[in-house]
């Protein structure tokens, strides 16, 4: 192999090298062209169109439209539905991110130490990730039924009052958040398990020699610091996933009761694809983008560092 490289690199091999450069240019452009064209068509051009639309009053099917400057942004700021949607989305995120990260970390640590039962627990906790959320949301709806649902029957048996999880304004977002956590614990757990198996064992042995053999000492001195990058990545990914909550709202509550579960993506869906207020929906999409962008950039940055073989 080395001999081959030696043959190419010296000055003596100039003609084939320049021919090679041309081939690389030609092939490189050819290979990248379909991806580039699709990138422009499905990503970049739509984003430009989105920004353009947000300054107009375009509605689907309208023959004419005019520029309205920042009017849409002003409307969005004043719109009670949008304000509520943003608050609800942030509340949902505030529950799902810590819950989804910490619970999956706990589960991963507990499963990691198991030998015979590890794969069984892995399968059980991962199952919701692969299942179709819409189908499972329907089942959750049954389980949470205020009078007939299994969960309320258990609560009643324990002496608690019947709880209308999905029709009580103060409970609906926490309930959806619990389902959100249910859906992503397995995914985060798998990432944490990978992080845990990358921790060298002698670090634990070193801590044991220092006399800190209590599990909590071991966790604080080795596991937590060593899992830092994984925790960061999982947190960022969970944030992005949580911020995009849509499915459970669309199927289980449709924003109700009384707007208590309106979330940003659902509001965009309604404005854009049900009421066809295209320019307003474009504005809202930009707001949505602004919220996720910080975390997406962080995720891409971490991903760029993390993925190497």
């Amino acid at each position, binding site marked *: *192999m080395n001999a081959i490289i030696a043959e*190419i690199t010296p000055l003596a091999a100039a003609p084939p090298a320049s021919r*090679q450069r041309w*081939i690389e*240019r030609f*092939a490189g452009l*050819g*290979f*990248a062209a*379909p*991806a*580039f064209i699709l*990138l422009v068509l*499905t*990503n970049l*051009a*739509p*984003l430009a169109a*989105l920004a353009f639309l947000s300054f107009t009053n375009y509605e689907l099917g309208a023959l004419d439209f005019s520029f309205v400057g920042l009017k849409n942004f002003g409307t969005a700021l004043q719109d009670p539905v949008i304000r509520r949607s943003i608050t609800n989305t942030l509340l949902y995120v505030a529950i799902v991110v810590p819950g989804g990260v910490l*619970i999956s970390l706990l*589960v991963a640590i*507990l499963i990691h130490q198991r030998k015979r039962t590890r*794969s069984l627990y892995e399968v*059980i*906790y991962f199952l919701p990730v*692969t*299942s*179709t*959320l*819409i*189908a499972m949301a329907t*089942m*959750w709806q*049954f*389980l949470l*039924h205020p009078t007939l*649902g*299994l969960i309320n*029957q258990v609560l009643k048996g324990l002496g608690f009052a019947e709880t209308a999880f999905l029709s009580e304004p103060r409970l609906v977002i926490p309930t959806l958040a619990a389902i959100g956590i249910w859906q992503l614990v397995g995914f985060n757990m*798998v990432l944490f398990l990978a992080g845990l198996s990358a921790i060298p*064992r002698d670090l634990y042995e070193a801590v044991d020699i220092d006399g800190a053999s209590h599990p909590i000492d071991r966790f604080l001195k080795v596991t937590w610091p060593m899992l830092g990058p994984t925790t960061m990545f999982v947190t960022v990914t969970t944030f*992005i996933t949580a911020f*995009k909550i*849509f*499915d459970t709202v669309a*199927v289980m509550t449709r924003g109700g009761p009384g707007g208590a579960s309106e979330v940003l*993506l659902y509001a965009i*869906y309604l404005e854009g*694809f049900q009421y066809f207020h*295209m320019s307003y929906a*474009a504005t809202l999409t930009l707001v949505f*983008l602004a919220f996720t*962008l910080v975390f*997406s950039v962080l*995720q*891409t940055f971490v*991903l*760029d560092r993390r*993925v190497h*073989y």
Partner: protein
Amino acid sequence: MGTSVTIARPPAPAAIRMRRLVSLALVHGVLIGGAVFMLLPFVFMLTSAIKPPGEIFEATFRLWPRQFFGWQNFEAALSTAPLLRFLLNGLIVCGGILVVQLLVAIPCAYALAKLRFPGRPILFSLVLLGLCIPVQAPSLPLYIAFAELGILNTYLSMMMPFFLSVFAIFLFRQFFKSYPDEIIQAARLDGVGEFEIVWRIVVPSAWPAIAAFSIFSVVAHWNDLYWPLIVISDTKLATPPLGMMYFADSELGSNYGALAAGATIITAPLVIAFLIARRHFIAGITMTGIK
């Protein structure tokens, strides 16, 4: 791990065994409690699918019904909604998306990893930019464009926005970068063209990355509701999640047994695939680590 700890300690066998037993019980207690929560909707779905209407919401929960009603429920589900058609649609859409994604992303990733051509740094920056944009962001202009072109309510409209996966390009580029240059140079000297180098030499070595991405892609698009909900209004073209939504909204929505049977049919393919190829799923998630 556990054994090395016990060796280091002064022996007090009975006390140590007691403590281990307690902590073991505690660990399994927590894990089993969590597992019950995770499995709850699945167990409820499977048991309801074989129960007669009167038994589903009975005060005492039973795993097996007094009267087996499975045939009736599945028959009612299959005769009211074209559930198998939904599964076929899911297969067509996911398959179509995946094939085009691989055909487009692999050569581009190879070019970014191994070929020097003008515009390469810009293209890579655009790929990184694309990674930061959630799939829901371009949906509005794409919808308008598809409406103008008159291709709403087609398989193509469901697949088109996902033909380019910047994530696939990113992942494959990382993988290809570590492929030895010597082998590529040797192949070039043997007169092998770049096209053949990609598909015959480099791609077979990238099998783990391709498998990981394929699982990621199929799981994501099989379960996606947002985009099909936007472009599809014809029930016949519905993908499994959209079909499930129609089904729950239909007059059958109050027949809980049939609905549970329908949910079972919709959920089964991916869950069964996961149970069979568990290791690949988990390896795939670990490698891609992104939704």
